[in-house]
């Protein structure tokens, strides 16, 4: 177990929200076809409110802070927020499309001590990338931004969300990342819109493409092991938690709403009405999320994949019940191993689920081991 994983266990033991994802705006200068957000300002927290939230989070023991959006540089006070967060000694990761990052911004990010910047690129070809972002010239500006950031010695990860429009280009993005000295993470995941609209799920890649991703040695360190049938679950598995959402991590919207995770839109309190710790310790919703063990899951508790599935409770919630299956994850397990899930057998399906496949893979950089991680760690930057 890595030291960070040990700290996560410790945070679980002490009930500490070790990892927090804070969206500072939903406004954006791109209009990506797959984005799950709207782009209006419905009353974002002020600079002072965000600083107060950050102070509360530091006092609660939060350490890993992801600042995202929307496009974070749409906020004129972004650097003030980042400086304040770093003053509180958060480890800060920034998610951005990079379009507004020039040499000056890159230098300031380095001076402030942002640990990592994640930037979305959909294709190495401008005609594909710019068609997805709907912003002409965006690929060039984003690549320029990565060069400025790398020139400052900053760590950059290129996040490559896969859709039917750009699936053929992921090898090109891998090569681009290598050329720029950036890490690469691929995410064949289209999520329902935050308001529940599922229409964008039509953009998901095909099942055959998903199988290809799972079996591509460029993305998966040990394909044979990764795609092996799941071992029988032990008691520890059945007593285990579905994921860290609400246990050691949470999400805060630009309006101060607290959720278990960015992909788990269960309103659990608002920071304009309560303190963070009152919500974290007192929210009935978070208590319910924390009470769920694998053995409590309807259908999934009897599934062969229960111990190895990436089941996302947020997607299950989207489908109707946080105790139920996430059919997107059923597809993942099926495409990975060839073994249908209990949910698929029950519903008699071998065909594609309504919500499409969902996976996250983070390999490629060669110094980073292959990881297929849970939903809440996903690359959801708009």
């Amino acid at each position, binding site marked *: 177990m890595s030291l960070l994983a040990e700290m996560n266990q410790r945070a679980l033991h*002490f009930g*500490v929200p070790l990892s927090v994802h804070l969206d500072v705006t939903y406004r954006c200068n791109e209009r990506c076809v797959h984005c799950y957000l709207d782009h209006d300002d419905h009353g974002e927290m002020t600079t002072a409110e965000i600083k107060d939230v950050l102070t509360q989070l530091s006092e609660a*023991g939060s350490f890993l802070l992801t600042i995202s959006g929307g496009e974070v540089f749409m906020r004129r006070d972004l650097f003030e927020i980042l400086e304040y967060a770093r*003053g509180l*000694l958060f480890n*800060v990761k920034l998610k951005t499309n990079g379009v507004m990052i020039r040499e000056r911004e890159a230098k300031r990010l380095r001076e402030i001590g942002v*640990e990592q910047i994640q930037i979305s690129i959909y294709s190495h070809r401008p005609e594909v990338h710019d068609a997805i972002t709907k912003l002409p010239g965006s690929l060039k500006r984003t690549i320029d931004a990565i060069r400025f950031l790398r020139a400052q010695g900053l760590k950059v990860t290129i996040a490559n969300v896969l859709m039917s429009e750009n699936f053929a280009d992921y090898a090109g993005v891998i090569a681009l990342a290598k050329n720029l000295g950036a890490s690469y993470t691929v995410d064949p995941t289209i999520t329902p819109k935050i308001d529940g609209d599922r229409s964008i799920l039509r953009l998901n890649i095909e099942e055959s493409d998903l199988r290809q991703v799972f079996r591509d040695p460029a993305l998966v360190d040990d394909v044979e092991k990764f795609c092996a049938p799941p071992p029988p679950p032990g008691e520890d598995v059945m007593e285990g938690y579905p994921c860290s959402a609400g246990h050691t991590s949470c999400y805060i919207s630009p309006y101060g709403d607290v959720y278990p995770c960015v992909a788990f839109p269960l309103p659990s309190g608002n920071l304009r009405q309560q303190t963070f710790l009152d919500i974290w310790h007192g929210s009935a919703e978070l208590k319910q999320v924390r009470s769920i063990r694998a053995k409590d899951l309807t259908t999934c508790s009897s599934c062969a994949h229960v111990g190895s599935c990436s089941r996302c409770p947020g997607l299950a919630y989207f489908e109707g019940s946080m105790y139920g299956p996430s059919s997107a994850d059923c597809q993942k397990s099926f495409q990975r191993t060839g073994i249908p899930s209990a949910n698929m057998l029950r519903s008699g399906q071998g065909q594609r689920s309504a919500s499409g496949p969902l996976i996250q893979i983070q390999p490629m950089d060669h110094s980073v081991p292959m990881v297929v991680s849970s939903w809440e760690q996903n690359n959801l930057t708009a």
Partner: protein
Amino acid sequence: MSEKYIRRSSQIAARMLGGEMMIMSVKDSTFFTLDSVATAIWQAADGRSSLTEIVASKICSQFDVSLETAVRDAEVFVQELAGHGILQISDRPIMNAEQTRGAQ
């Protein structure tokens, strides 16, 4: 041996968790945890106090250890942290010391 002064780097992230200090270098993402003794030294590393002063006030006042032994151990420890860029070491006080508010 000359007196040493130590200062926390601004290029780190840190937080207390269950009595241990988590520290991550934002330059290379190296992750450390410090026990209570190491945490006391690290938190006192303001660039103005000498290592001997820090050890005397934070360690020897709380533990049954001689100043000479404790300083010798602390020098090894601070050299290691400096090697990872999370502490600065100097033979004279380090001005413009840490602006961060300190880990909770």
